[in-house]
């Protein structure tokens, strides 16, 4: 039996529809800036404990997914830089989108927010915003890499 569509939209999605629906084409992307302000207040580039909770206690799986994410983002940064240099907005958008969902699901919120800024900037063809987003993305990647390295060291010592 099918139910009315509106009642089935999860609240988190529904509450944001009116905000994003108000944006107009060619206007500067807004949400990443707000997200960035929120993300900057965080000390850690990832909430590892929360990730383990969200993966229902599968810590080893979270570790391996983090390692894989870092490997892939390392190569992806070159692709993002090339796409931006060539004004290849579609590749830039697609590459940023690839990381956005994965990083968010791994609780690496700052990296996800930076990817979102690149994705939205590419969608609207905003070069300055895309450049800022890419710089931010690279910084957050370095922070996440250091975070993972520190965890590895800690594990080895234990």
């Amino acid at each position, binding site marked *: 039996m099918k139910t009315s569509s509106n009642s*089935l939209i999860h609240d*988190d999605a529904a509450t*944001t*529809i009116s905000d994003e629906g108000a944006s107009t084409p060619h206007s500067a992307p807004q949400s990443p800036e707000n997200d960035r302000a929120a993300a900057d207040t965080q000390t850690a580039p990832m909430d590892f404990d929360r990730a383990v909770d*969200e993966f*229902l206690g599968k810590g080893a799986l979270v570790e391996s*997914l983090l390692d894989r994410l870092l490997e892939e983002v390392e190569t992806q940064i070159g692709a993002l830089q090339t796409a931006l240099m060539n004004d290849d907005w579609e590749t830039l958008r697609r590459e940023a*989108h690839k990381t956005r*969902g994965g990083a968010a699901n791994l609780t690496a919120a700052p990296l996800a927010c930076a990817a979102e800024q690149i994705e939205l900037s590419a969608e609207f063809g905003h070069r300055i915003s895309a450049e800022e987003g890419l710089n931010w993305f690279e910084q957050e990647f370095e922070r996440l890499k250091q975070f993972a390295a520190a965890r590895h060291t800690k594990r080895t010592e234990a």
Partner: protein
Amino acid sequence: MRILIVDDDYVTRAKLKAILSDHGDCDAAPNGELALSMLEDALNDAHPYDLVTMDVDMPGMSGEEVVREIRRREWNWAKRMSRPVVEAKVLMVTVRRDSQTVIASFRRGCEGYLAKPVTPEKLRAALAKLECEEPVSEA
């Protein structure tokens, strides 16, 4: 319950599988084309999927296109076999939150919409809205 997870992002696939494996048997596909083939096989084996989680933005077919194709194949299968239509419940799981995508997804035939990041609580709430089964361990 049989569940098919469709997402090009491996982190999301792993997370959904970690959470949904308590609710049923999970298969996963990284793109729409493979998902459709798996869905068709499941129909032909008379063991169709009960729930499909679907990403929107994927290389190749978009999630919306896959949902439309799922519905078309379910109807064709029922017609061919002279059986009632068996529709899998489709839950869109995506970072996209714009009204255009949400509306288009429902028009193509999805029944629920969940914004990433996925958490066990959000997913369970979405499953409850879809009236999906309780976790196997609690059944």
